[in-house]
């Protein structure tokens, strides 16, 4: 028994070794973490690491969704606006709920309304791309402006406030309250995101649907001639992308207890960068949700670490750009080496 465990451990150790060898992103993550913890010892505090998970939550949700679309060989730049719209609409809907509504009802309404809005916009994108053959970049650019316009129309230009405190449960409550940490250790938002990451990772990597997503992204003609309804796959991926973005938007508005029409502006760019840093090719056909989330972690760590090191916000932009470039270049070189 002992022996088996031993070899299992070695196996896992080897696996991690092989994984990080193949995935430059792991090296980038480690380097950044070491650098920032030297820069400010607070970086490695458990409470900061937990913060990191909540700070990357929104980007993670956007990234999950866009990974599907990118593997498909498409792109969706509307996700920031769709997230904001979902946040605004959800806040409006929940404000209209009768007082004293239960937490469970609240969460169901939040996710239900949010996901409907997001999936709806995703379906619109999907329709434009499949039926009307509009290039994804332009279809989703149109959605970007339309969704943002609707944000302001629905909210009347100001943020949607006056929400009950249970509205913020999803986004800001934490479990395991201790004396040292009276607000609790384990954020609900982190749990929610992890659940979505796991489900969406499995959906992509283990199911027939996932296989069909990869095939469609690899060569749409071949997929079609092999009996895959590629139009349906594409449509569904855009819907998933919209829905995930919307969950991100709902979590965001729950975190802020407030529906902000200007939320998540240009977040799509960081979601795309995260996905690419995680090794997903913008040409489609390959990639993984789990690795894209590592890309999110890089973005979150850069922001968090630079803030802790009090780097000037103007310089932060420059550093962020440089690190994204380095991460992608490292990933490319790694891939070339292993080929």
């Amino acid at each position, binding site marked *: 028994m002992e022996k088996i465990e031993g070899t299992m451990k070695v196996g896992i150790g080897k696996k991690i070794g092989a994984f990080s060898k193949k995935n430059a992103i792991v090296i980038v993550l480690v380097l950044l973490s070491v650098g920032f913890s030297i820069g400010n010892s607070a970086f490695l505090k458990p409470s900061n690491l937990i913060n990191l998970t909540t700070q990357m939550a929104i980007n993670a949700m956007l990234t999950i969704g866009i990974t599907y679309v990118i593997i498909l060989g498409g792109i969706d730049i509307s996700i920031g606006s769709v997230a904001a719209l979902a946040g605004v609409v959800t806040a409006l809907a929940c404000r209209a709920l009768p007082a004293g509504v239960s937490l469970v009802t609240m969460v169901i309404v939040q996710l239900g309304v949010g996901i409907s809005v997001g999936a709806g916009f995703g379906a619109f994108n999907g329709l434009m791309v499949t039926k009307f053959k509009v290039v994804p970049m332009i279809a989703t650019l149109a959605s970007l402006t339309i969704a943002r316009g609707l944000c302001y129309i629905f909210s009347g230009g*100001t943020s949607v406030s006056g929400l009950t405190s249970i509205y913020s449960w999803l986004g800001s409550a934490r479990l395991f309250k201790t004396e040292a940490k009276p607000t609790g250790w384990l954020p609900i938002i982190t749990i929610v995101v992890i659940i979505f990451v796991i489900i969406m990772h499995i959906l992509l990597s283990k199911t027939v649907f996932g296989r069909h997503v990869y095939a469609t992204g690899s060569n749409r003609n071949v997929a079609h001639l092999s009996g895959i309804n590629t139009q349906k796959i594409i449509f569904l991926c855009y819907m998933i992308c919209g829905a995930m973005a919307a969950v991100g938007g709902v979590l965001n508005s729950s975190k802020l207890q407030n529906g902000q029409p200007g939320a998540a502006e240009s977040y799509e760019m960081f979601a795309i960068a995260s996905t690419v840093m995680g090794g997903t090719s913008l040409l489609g056909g390959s990639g993984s949700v789990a690795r894209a989330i590592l890309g999110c972690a890089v973005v979150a760590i850069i922001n968090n670490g630079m*803030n*802790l090191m009090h780097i000037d916000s103007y310089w932060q932009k420059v550093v962020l750009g440089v690190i994204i470039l380095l991460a992608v270049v490292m990933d490319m070189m790694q891939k070339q080496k292993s080929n």
Partner: protein
Amino acid sequence: SSPKETDPTPAPDTDNEVITPPETDEMDASGLKLGFILGSREHAFYVAIEDGIKAAAADLGFEAVVLESNLDGAVASERIETLVVDGCDAISLSVNDPTGSTPAIEAADTEGVPMFAFDCTSSETDVIKSFVGTDNYEGGVVGGEAVIKYLEDNDLTDGAVIGIIGYPEPQSCIDREDGWFSVVNEYKDEYNLTIVNLGNYKGDASTAESLMNDALIQYPDMAAIFTVGDPACVGALAAIKAAGAKTVMIGFDANPEAHEAILDPENGKIWIADVAQDPYQIGYSIAEQMVQYCLKNTVDATTILISPYLVDASNAEVK
């Protein structure tokens, strides 16, 4: 508008001395078409200015054409041209950047359309007939004083950590930051303060939430922060609550959510006050000045500053 701009630039054909203000209800502005360019309509502050403009239009009878410039000088210039073509009798704008759009402003003036400014004005041209705005620098000062007062009232006058969440991109926010620093720096040595700049929240509440989170990791005992805009407070509030910290906040703009939060039994313990501008009044006043100029060729003053004031539990109200 920074303090150096508070001394008014005299307009060529008006007297700087305040003339007896004409009774506004004497004016019949029907038939006038006035153009307004808001910095943005994606911000509660400007939306309130718009409300003031609309109210003035209803009261005085002129037609108001309200456009926005996306806080972009180039767009503001285009909007000026468009309003001139549209036949406006006078145009006012909120140049996000106090020096932006100068050539377009001057061109409109040359074409015979009188130009006005609100919220922010241009220091680079002397054709602006009148400017109505808040003194943002002064607002920062009010915020700074409120922070100091909080420290004094709560016996935190030795070694407290205070912070600011800024947005050093629009000029108005830069001025607020400068005003705030001018106050707290004065007390720095006396009270042994640690003053932390939490960073740039870029007008985005979620970014502010991350900034606050990060700051509380290093300074869990941070006593108070000032933010240059209410969205930053919305974000920071979430972070402070999540961390269970005792930090209090003073925001800027006094948007409805600020009033709500200040009166909320729970949130009011954190979000204790807010620096209010009176955007509604800004909108109303600039419209009045434009009407007055069109009808009587006079303005009350070339610079009309509406002072910012502090909103706290004593005077906050939920509409």
